[in-house]
């Protein structure tokens, strides 16, 4: 009996001790973080005072970042568009390699969710695969277009119709044309695949074609990969997806006789393209050093190469 009680008490004590330790170490961490933040804030303020003008501060900051890659430390949190997953991951990886002291985390929650996180202050950069809405800009978000993405119209690999006009595309998505034989193909029903309401790709696709709220989807899938997979495995299916998601399991259709290639998108002859935005709260120059460095990196030749390597088109 006594032994049992002793055990109980010991266990209780262990649990209590565990709880206390847990709290203790957390508190210590928080304090340390807070101290670090204070220190950097102080340093920044000092620098600003010394330099006296904003421009000078910017220069100083720039010089600091270029001179001391290794010294730059901190973290960048980004969240947003699933369409930008490839780009964000590539940037995060390459940037962390260049600046080992900076940790970049990227989450893919969707364009609106990313901007919401930015407004809520939980991330530094909100990734959006559409232009920012007026209400988002009013909340202080600044639209920094880092790349341009083309939207490809994808067809199942057995389809003989590989060139569509804009009108035909509109008719297909409105449900006015329902069989490929009406477009010169084989007698195969058209399975219209699209993305869910709110998706950046869907928003861009419908807006670019003037199809807002008029599409008759047979499938509304919630990711780019799902669209590609469904189209690849379903005879007669048509869908849309980011250009960089196009692989050889499907055909990317020509539109008005124009192939969905980078040159054509840059030249403006391909009709389906959209901006990739890395939004910040306030101008880039008002961001933390690591975030500024990230944008500088994206503008550098190295960054541009990276953007191209993930199938996107650079801005300038």
């Amino acid at each position, binding site marked *: 009996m006594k032994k049992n009680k002793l055990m109980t008490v010991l266990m209780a004590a262990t649990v209590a001790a565990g709880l206390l330790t847990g709290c203790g170490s957390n508190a210590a961490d928080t304090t340390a973080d807070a101290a670090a933040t204070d220190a950097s804030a102080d340093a920044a303020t000092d620098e600003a005072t010394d330099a006296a003008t904003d421009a000078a501060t910017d220069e100083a900051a720039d010089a600091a970042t270029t001179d001391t890659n290794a010294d730059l430390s901190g973290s960048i949190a980004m969240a947003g568009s699933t369409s930008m997953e490839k780009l964000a991951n590539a940037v995060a990886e390459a940037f962390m390699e260049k600046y080992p002291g900076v940790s970049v985390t990227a989450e893919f929650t969707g364009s609106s969710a990313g901007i919401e996180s930015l407004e809520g202050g939980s991330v530094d950069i909100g990734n959006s695969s559409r232009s920012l809405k007026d209400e988002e800009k009013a909340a202080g978000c600044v639209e920094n277009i880092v790349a341009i993405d083309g939207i490809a119209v994808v067809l199942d690999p057995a389809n003989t119709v590989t060139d569509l006009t804009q009108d035909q595309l509109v008719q297909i998505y409105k449900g006015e044309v329902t069989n490929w034989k009406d477009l010169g193909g084989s007698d195969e029903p058209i399975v219209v695949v699209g993305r869910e309401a*709110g998706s*950046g790709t869907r928003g861009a696709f419908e807006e670019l074609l003037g199809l807002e*709220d008029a599409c008759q989807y047979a499938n*509304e899938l919630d990711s780019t990969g799902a669209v590609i997979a469904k189209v690849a495995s379903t005879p007669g299916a048509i869908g849309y997806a980011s250009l960089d998601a196009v692989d050889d399991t499907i055909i990317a259709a020509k539109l008005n006789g124009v192939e969905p290639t980078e040159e054509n998108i840059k030249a403006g002859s391909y009709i389906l393209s959209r901006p990739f935005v890395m939004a910040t709260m306030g101008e880039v120059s008002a961001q933390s050093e690591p975030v500024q460095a990230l944008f500088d990196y994206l503008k550098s030749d190295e960054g541009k190469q990276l953007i191209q390597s993930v199938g996107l088109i650079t801005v300038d």
Partner: protein
Amino acid sequence: MHTSIFANHKNKSIVEIIAHIIFVVCALVAVMAVFAITAYMIINGSPALFKVGIKEILFNTKWAPAAAEPHFGILYVILTSIIGTFAAILLGVPVALLTAVFLAEVAPKKLADIVRPAVTLLAGIPSVIYGLLGILILNPLMYKLEKAVFAGSSTHQYTGGSNMLSAILVLAIMILPTVINISESALHAVPDHLRSASLALGASKIETIFKVVIPAAKSGIISAIVLGVGRAIGEAMAITLVSGSSVNAPLPFNSVRFLTTAIVSEMGYASGLHRQVLFTIGLVLFVFIMIINLVLTGILKEKEED
């Protein structure tokens, strides 16, 4: 020798009190979670109900949340969940019940030893695997069936096999382990003297099973079915992959959206009122699950009173 580590009565009672507090706190975690979730669902789910109008949400069939003039009618979504779940139960329960009877009453031990682990394994397979198999195997078959059924139809919108029927089949398979395991326990719990009495009166084994054992295990089997309903109505991952996920009337060859998949598929990109309405859908689902749980509690109570 006195070996207690407590020097006196006072220390001992302090330790007792601390231990008591820790136990109470642990017990409260679950209760708090339930209350927090309930409060959160009501706080987040109800504003849209009043902004859009209860009638407009619950009894309208048009779902166009991102349109310039948005519509948030989820009647088809609610009906899909109810009919889909009901159909899955209709398909799955007979199979599950007969499997349970087989395991509990009929099967030779060696065979039961093969079937039982298979059922357990079925319960352990992640739902996304069901969904993937649905895409790879079920959807192409369904598309062939769809083309055959609607050959020559000019009004039918072809779904490529992602339809209500596929979702129902996947759900029916997914509820099997739940219903089998609980029904089997219920059948095992039927006292042997009932079987002996029935057999002694000249009833055959099959007669005994259907006229004596199953009626005696009725309340256990009903709770198995209710739990199966719970599993089916709450499932999202598997059916989001096979159902096509467009909001349509819940007909067998239509691409449909369930309450769960409505939340899952649009939460990522939704903003503003659209997002709030998704929480409202969550609230509706929550209410359904609560009702199912209350029914289950009622059945279990009745069983105790018996």
